[in-house]
């Protein structure tokens, strides 16, 4: 059995920032484990910026940022969390800058800031349009400098929790095929989101919700899983992200009539309304027959109003992506775009120190020694809809807080252990796939699942479609029991990993759908045609989905209150959300 004081799973911004914080205590042995090399983590794909009220371009304040975040999240945001996020934003940015982050600069040599959807001030700090990459790189550099141990290309199979105390992890070394137990006094999940279950998505192949499902299987309920953000500017077909920075810099979105239709949906903000609103506007235009291209399944984003020089300087990635992946030069022509599954608002419930907590029960008991941060977690700073550039901020701020949360308690935690019995599940799962001789193929089930989720649990939802969706997901789960893979080897067996990941996708897709059926209202990223209004009286609360026990037909849903108790100011009262 391998052993560390602290084990961080996932090597994106949240995981690396937490590891860096823990490594401030030289007496602690901290390690990171990730199924991809840290530099390959999906945080690196974030493009447009990282929000903080530095006030470099215009007057700004943390409580204005907090208000934008709460309103952007359609008031499902926990206000204690939004307060922490926005108050601690600037110092976190300065810290990254002092580490050497390659931030773009303004004329005064300060960190440059630009506008983003739903933010009333220009507060997106950026590194051209590769901000995630710049932050990811600098955090990895600092980890190298500290000599933090990294289990690179190790796949976490199982989280071991006994009597609400986390013991550690069972993991699979992708290179050797060995299954190892790794015990730790504290484990943190920064394992990212679950957008891969949708056909059109910006997410990397790796974003399969592994950590979320491991927590669920360990008995921890998942919070607000039905809230999935569809980003309005994915490249048609592939769904590859074209940064919101394009709109921040002045790009227009038009329908087949050449009309800037946001005029009809959010006249005050136009293209810079929050993402859920722009995505729904696009989907409405497409469904009304005003889509573009021969498929009529998209609308146009026109970058030309920005001007060539500024596009080349501030949006080089957008320029290259449109050229390389759509064969369109945005300097000459508008680019067809469509809503694309982008961000997972839901996840593992935790408090503002990253401590995982079951929030619905009296006293909200914690899972001792288990922490979460970033997209895998649900603190909830994003509520029903995340504002652009708040995700990188959350990963950094909450990653640091989780690191500190771990430092606060880890010296008092008892050593843990994992025995053979604890490893049985993981070993059994791997063995099952390596020896199965079923007739079903992973690739086929996965493709059907992604179609189902996109078409029946997408931008707009209704009861009938969601029920069809649930039926189909359950059918895929049954077929998955009879799946077989080709590769039975022990070295770099990605065929095996594909199968395990599909198992995760099938499990959380059911949770998303069940939560969406139950929530009979429209709020943020969850838009019901049959319940078009927000219903605060019945639904101003978080969903908590428990894994079915013996005899249950599906996940058991509980609900808990939204936090309305910020420490340093009055809470923002519920208001109608218009832009």
């Amino acid at each position, binding site marked *: 059995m391998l052993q560390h004081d602290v084990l961080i799973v996932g090597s994106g911004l949240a995981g690396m920032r937490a590891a860096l914080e823990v490594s401030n205590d030289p007496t602690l042995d901290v390690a990171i484990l990730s199924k991809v090399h840290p530099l390959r983590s*999906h945080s690196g*794909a974030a493009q447009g910026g990282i929000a903080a009220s530095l006030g470099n371009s215009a007057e700004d304040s943390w409580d204005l940022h907090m208000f934008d975040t709460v309103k952007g999240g359609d008031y499902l945001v926990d206000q204690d969390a939004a307060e922490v996020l926005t108050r601690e934003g600037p110092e976190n940015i*300065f810290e990254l800058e002092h580490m050497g982050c390659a931030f773009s600069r303004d004329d005064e*040599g300060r960190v440059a800031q630009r506008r983003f959807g739903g933010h009333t001030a220009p507060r997106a700090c950026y590194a051209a349009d*590769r901000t995630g990459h710049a932050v990811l790189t600098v955090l990895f550099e600092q980890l190298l*400098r500290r000599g933090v141990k990294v289990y690179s290309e190790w796949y976490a199979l199982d989280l071991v929790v006994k009597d609400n105390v986390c013991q550690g992890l069972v993991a699979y070394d992708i290179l050797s095929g060995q299954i190892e137990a790794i015990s730790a006094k504290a484990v943190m999940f920064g394992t990212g989101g679950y957008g891969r279950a949708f056909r059109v998505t910006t997410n990397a192949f790796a974003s399969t919700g592994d950590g979320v499902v491991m927590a669920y299987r360990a008995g921890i309920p998942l919070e607000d899983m039905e809230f999935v953000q569809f980003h309005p500017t994915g490249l048609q077909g592939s769904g590859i992200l074209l940064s919101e920075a394009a709109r921040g810099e002045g790009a227009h979105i038009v329908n087949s009539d050449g009309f800037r239709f946001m005029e009809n949906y959010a006249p005050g903000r136009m293209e810079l309304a929050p993402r859920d609103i722009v995505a729904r506007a696009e989907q409405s235009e497409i469904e009304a027959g005003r889509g573009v291209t021969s498929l009529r399944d998209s609308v146009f984003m026109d970058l030309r109003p920005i001007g060539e020089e500024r596009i080349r300087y501030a949006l080089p990635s957008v320029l290259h*992506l449109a050229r390389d992946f759509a*064969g369109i030069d945005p300097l000459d022509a508008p680019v067809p775009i469509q809503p694309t599954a982008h961000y997972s608002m839901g996840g593992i419930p935790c408090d503002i120190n990253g401590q995982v907590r079951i929030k619905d029960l009296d006293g909200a008991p914690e899972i001792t020694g288990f922490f979460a941060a970033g997209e895998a977690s649900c603190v909830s700073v994003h509520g029903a809809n995340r504002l652009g550039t708040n995700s990188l901020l959350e990963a950094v701020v909450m990653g640091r807080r989780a690191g500190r949360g771990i430092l606060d308690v880890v010296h008092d935690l008892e050593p843990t252990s994992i025995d053979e019995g604890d490893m049985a599940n993981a070993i059994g799962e791997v063995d099952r796939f390596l020896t199965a001789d079923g007739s079903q193929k992973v690739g086929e089930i996965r493709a059907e699942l992604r179609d189902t989720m996109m078409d029946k649990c997408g931008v707009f939802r209704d009861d009938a479609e969601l029920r069809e969706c649930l039926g189909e997901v359950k059918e895929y789960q049954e077929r998955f029991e009879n799946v077989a893979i080709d590769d039975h080897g022990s070295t770099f067996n990605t*065929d095996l990993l594909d199968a395990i990941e599909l198992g995760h996708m099938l499990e959380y897709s059911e949770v998303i759908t069940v939560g969406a059926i139950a929530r009979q209202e429209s709020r943020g990223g969850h838009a019901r045609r049959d319940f078009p209004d927000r219903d605060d009286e019945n639904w101003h609360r978080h969903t908590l989905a428990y894994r079915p026990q013996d005899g249950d037909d599906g996940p058991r849903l509980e609900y808990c209150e939204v936090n309305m108790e910020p420490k340093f100011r009055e809470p923002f009262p519920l208001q109608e959300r218009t832009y």
Partner: protein
Amino acid sequence: MAQQEFIIDRYNPDTDESYQESFNVDVQPGQTVLDSLNAIKWEQDGTLSFRMSCRHAICGSCAMKVNGQSMLTCQTQVDAAAERGDPIRVGPQGNQNVIKDLVVDVTKFLDQFERAETWLEPYEDQDPPEREYRQKVEEFDHWSHASTCIHCGACYSDCTVAGVDENFLGPAALAKAYRFVMDSRDSKRDERLKFLSEEQGGIWDCTRCYMCVQACPKDVLPMDAIMELRTLAIEAGHTNNHGVRHHKGFTSGVRKRGRLDEMMLPIQSVGIGRLITGNLSAHKEMMDYTPGAIRLLKTRKLLTIAQRHGANAEGREQIERIFDEVEAEKHHHDVDADAFGAEFETAIGGH
């Protein structure tokens, strides 16, 4: 829908067997090489292994050799890779050991960043400012291209030096070192330049073949960064090393005789002064040249004194004129460099 043949290098680690295998894939317009590899894996042969993740040219996982050249397969259109209906050949990256099929062991490549200590070393004698360090737009623009590296290894895979010299830091790590040399927030500029000049496998081992620039899917321009590092290192006075002596010996030979003086070059590179004073390691370096020199003599690549006549008088006059022009140009360049240097000093003066 058209069919495209792919010929893929396979390696099975369990049987230690290498072979090539052909697959036919239905391709749609706009389909990438990575899409095609996925189609093969998901529909034809699940045992095919390769790395990939973001599928839009930012995570750096999927660099492989396509028709012999390293590139990101996610960024490469099938149409662009297929010439005249020929099969597309896909193989693992070069200069690294193959683990399985298209997966290589990237440890050696990634270790070079650690060796070159490519992370910011802050000024230790003073606290950082309360807010951000100020950095001029011009300064940022000067090096930011080198910070766009996605560590995909395409440059290292195609590097002609890394293939023959295990010690070479390689294009990516050197370009990243350049990025910190140029960043006014870093306190180790001079130490870095000294290390990069004197380290075995540092800036002077690049042969300027330009393969790294060609292979890089981003705007890093590794070789240009290495060349700029050489200039900066010389300006900073790091001239007492093999690389600079070689560089000077090379030019002085050409200037004097109108041709490369192969016999003198090793002596000049090792350092005449070091040899005369009986420096042991210098004499060992000379001995290291011997086997290569014998091989060159045998193949008539290295001419004996009797055979070396160089350029005639007219030719030498022309060469002299070229040198004069280059030096005038260089002077002009140095003026720019001075202005930049002053700006740099002002920028770091604030710490």
